[in-house]
């Protein structure tokens, strides 16, 4: 146990150092940081995804926060470091989950059970939630118009950030978060549910 703790601590120190160095302008630190965080995040996500419980993925949104607590020594960083961390970790989480969904989709085509949406959720909204792959595609389209708008979705969905954390990470007020979210949501709804492809 003791050696495990030590290992955990040293990697925590290392990741924290890199995060601070990145804020201070060291781009190499960022490149070194990303694979470290990615691997740890992927390990945590896989752990969750492996469990066969149907509600497993409900918890994935909390992973970014959990990773932050586990990987970063909070006594040494500033709020800006936290925002940076959330931004890259949310992006990674998106990639991890989309990869997972792709591999599942391949398995399904191989003859496994059909994916059926929960119709019991219908009263919440007449539309079923989008599949992860469709959402990923829509976000790519959205990012081509406005990367900030896509990032809002990424942080919210894949990072599991609440409105306060979103405001902090994006450097805007919570009221602005709410306003932007409303537009973005309408856009996603029109794209994903009503199948519209707008061009300006």
């Amino acid at each position, binding site marked *: 146990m003791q050696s495990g703790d030590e290992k955990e601590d040293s990697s925590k120190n290392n990741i924290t150092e890199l995060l601070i160095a990145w804020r201070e302008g060291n781009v190499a630190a960022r490149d070194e940081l990303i694979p470290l965080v990615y691997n740890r995040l992927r390990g945590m996500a896989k752990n969750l995804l492996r469990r066969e419980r*149907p*509600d*497993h*993925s*409900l*918890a*994935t*949104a909390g992973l970014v926060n959990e990773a932050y607590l586990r990987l970063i020594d909070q006594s040494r960083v500033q709020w800006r470091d936290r925002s940076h961390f959330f931004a890259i970790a949310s992006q990674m989480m998106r990639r991890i*989950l989309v990869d997972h*969904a792709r591999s599942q989709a391949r398995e399904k085509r191989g003859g496994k059970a*059909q*994916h*059926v*949406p*929960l*119709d*019991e*959720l*219908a*009263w*919440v*909204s*007449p*539309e*079923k*939630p*989008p*599949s*992860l792959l469709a*959402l990923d595609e829509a976000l790519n389209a959205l990012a081509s*118009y*406005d990367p900030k*708008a896509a990032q809002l979705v990424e942080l919210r*969905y*894949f990072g*599991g950030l609440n409105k306060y954390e979103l405001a902090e990470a994006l450097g805007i007020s919570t009221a602005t978060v709410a*306003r*932007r979210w*409303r*537009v973005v*949501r*309408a*856009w*996603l*709804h*029109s794209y994903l*549910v*009503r199948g*519209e492809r*707008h*061009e*300006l």
Partner: protein
Amino acid sequence: MSSDSWRTLEEVFERAVELEGEEREAFLQQRCSDDEKLLQVLQSLLASDESAGAYLEGPLAEAEVEAKPAASPLAKGHWVGPFQILEKLGEGGMSTVYRATRQDDTFHRQVALKVIRRGMESAETLRRLRIERQILARLEHPHIARLYEGGMTEEGLPYFVMELVDGVPIDHFCQQHQLSIDDRLELVKKICGAVQYAHQNLIVHRDLKPNNILVTADGEPKLLDFGIAKLLDPTTVSKTEATSAWVRLLTPHYAAPEQLEGKPVSTATDVYSLGVLLYKLLTGELPFLRKSHQSLKDLEALVLSSKPPKPSLVAQRQRARQSSGSHSREGAQETASSIASDERLQRRLSGDLDTIVLKAMNRDPQRRYPSAEGLATDLHQHLSGFPVLARRDSWSYRTGKFLRRHRLAVGTAAAFVSVLVAGGFALAFQATSLRLERDQLQEVVSLVVDIFEVAGEGEPITVRQAVDRSTALLDVRLGQQPEVQATLLHTIGRIYLNLGATGQAQTLLEEAVGLRSHRFGSDSLEAAESLSFLGLALALNGEFEDGEARSREALDLYRQHLGTQSPDLVPPMNTLVGVLCARNGASDEAQKLAAETLEMAQRLLDKQSFQLGLALSHRALLLSREGEHDDAAALYRQALDLYRHNLGEEHPEIAVLTNNLAFANQRRGELEEAEDLFREALSLNRKLLGTESSTLAQSAYNLGNLNLELGRFDEAEPLFREALGIVTAVHGPDHYSTLLITVGLASTHISQGLPQDAELLLRQGLELWSGPLEGTWFLATAVGVLGESILSQGRHEEAEPLLRKSHSQILELRGDQDPKTREAAARLETLRQKSGRDPSPGEVLDSL
């Protein structure tokens, strides 16, 4: 689309969503006059915004949740068990309802067949489903759709066969027929009656909403799906599903805050939903309007954190909207103004109806109506033009009832006050320390009478208002006299104490202490007098330590003024003993002080004094708690004589004392005498308290227990049932007294040779009790009797763990000398005898 045009889009969208109808259209046309594409995109996004509901508001992974395949709908002609499908009637979030028929000799009619669209996994779940179904099938009420039977389809989906109700949802019915406010209230009253009936059978609906309340063509409401929600609630059926998913299936507008929070559900939950129903029927709107962009979470947060606007305010707003010509978004919806098309509606709603609706919908379950019947009573009062007692929170329902009864029962005003004041702990106006002239005292007495007369009859007011109003009157009659005002506060505080309205008593006595300390000094006798009773109020409110400290401090002050041998020390000493008695049990300290008080009272007071009676009854109570029933009975008899002398033959306190004396006699083994006394207490309580007091329930319960002990099971049963009916209505089904009475009834059933009935009753109850009563000996006893009922049905292995658990818990809680522990040990012993292969008489007979 470039980044720039996105920003433009964002900006115009944000302003446009704030506008409605033509205004929005005009704004869009103006902003996009030269950009047709932008206009199109905006219109598309705005349309999405309106129809998106909670789209994307939930956590991401809802998208990825795997579900079991939904059952394919059943076609016409398809058979489900013995029933043949005729047509699909409707589809809900989790079930599909069909019209079906069964054609054989015994049963020839159409029924509603409801198929639940999700499987129930374990054998345990199935077993429980069967038990629940049996309980639900017992509900027979003209306004509740009968549940005939149920089962499992070939695909493993549960189904229920119910009375087919030909009707429309209540909100539609009211709208179609343009019912008046009075007619709507009458309908809700009937619904309350049905809900109350189910609650008395320990069944909570959990999902009351217009779609579950149909009204037939002849205007009679029928409640559907009683208890069905519970069968589907994963937190009660199995632990494998997340509660949040379950909550999602409820109709959030009608769900009570505790349901949204995943807290235990009780009868108060149904009362809340009835409140929302009333709201909807009176205003045409739901209390918490969810805007299209709000998520379910936002709505939940709203329900949990804010109060709904008063119904009268909604009516006012609607009227304002109509006169300004703009329309609400749900244009097709019924509005309050269309319910009653004149301006008087708003006035009609404000006052009583506002208060009734908001009381039913109080966020705190404790502060709602104690029962559906309570709500019905207020609706009735309102309809018949009587003051509604829910009107102000501070006027407790019970107090009002008590007052009204006694206003009728007692002839003169002075006698009325003495009845109110005399009971319990002392006579309010016998206090020696009052520095008031006799005529001032008279003034206070008549004012108190006025206050309660006003409260009982005319326009309802708060006590605070009553006191303020009388103080103003006093100022006119007597000039500014804070001492008189303080006495008034003190006296009314005392009256509340005697009525059991201990919360109000505390408030008023605190004020009295403050005023008297200010006027006479904090170490004055006057301040001490109020302080002594404030201690009692605190103790009765559960703040034992604080209460004891205050009453002790008061007694010390009395001693400083009067020495240690004054007869005037007896009242504060009695009060302190009362404080110590409020905590269950009998500490050495309480015993010692009670004995000392009694000794002083016997030595220094008049032999006929009420304070002597009080000291006797306290001492008797504590002796009885110690198991010294012979001595207790003798003292109770003396106390009764003094109570009768001071209070007359018929007084609630006399019933309480008679009941206690009967109990002591039962414990002494004087069963016949006990029975006579219990009957006396019971009939006195019936006469004085009407049919809904918990004291009455206690008498019925005690007499039931005695009959059980005497082996007269068929006499015991109706008594337990009567008690159960009262207690579920007054305290709710999850109260410990409901548990005790249910255990009594179940034991009776076991003795009657009906252990299956006992098992059903206890299983049903244990679900409600296991949360709130965890770790009490009552709960452990219920578990033990459940084990006994199972044992009586020959399922030894199933009974054993229950009997063991019950015994060890009671042993731990009560020690090995307690009668409850011995009863539990006896139950366990029966198991040993039955399991040790001594053949039972039945088996011997069988083998011959």
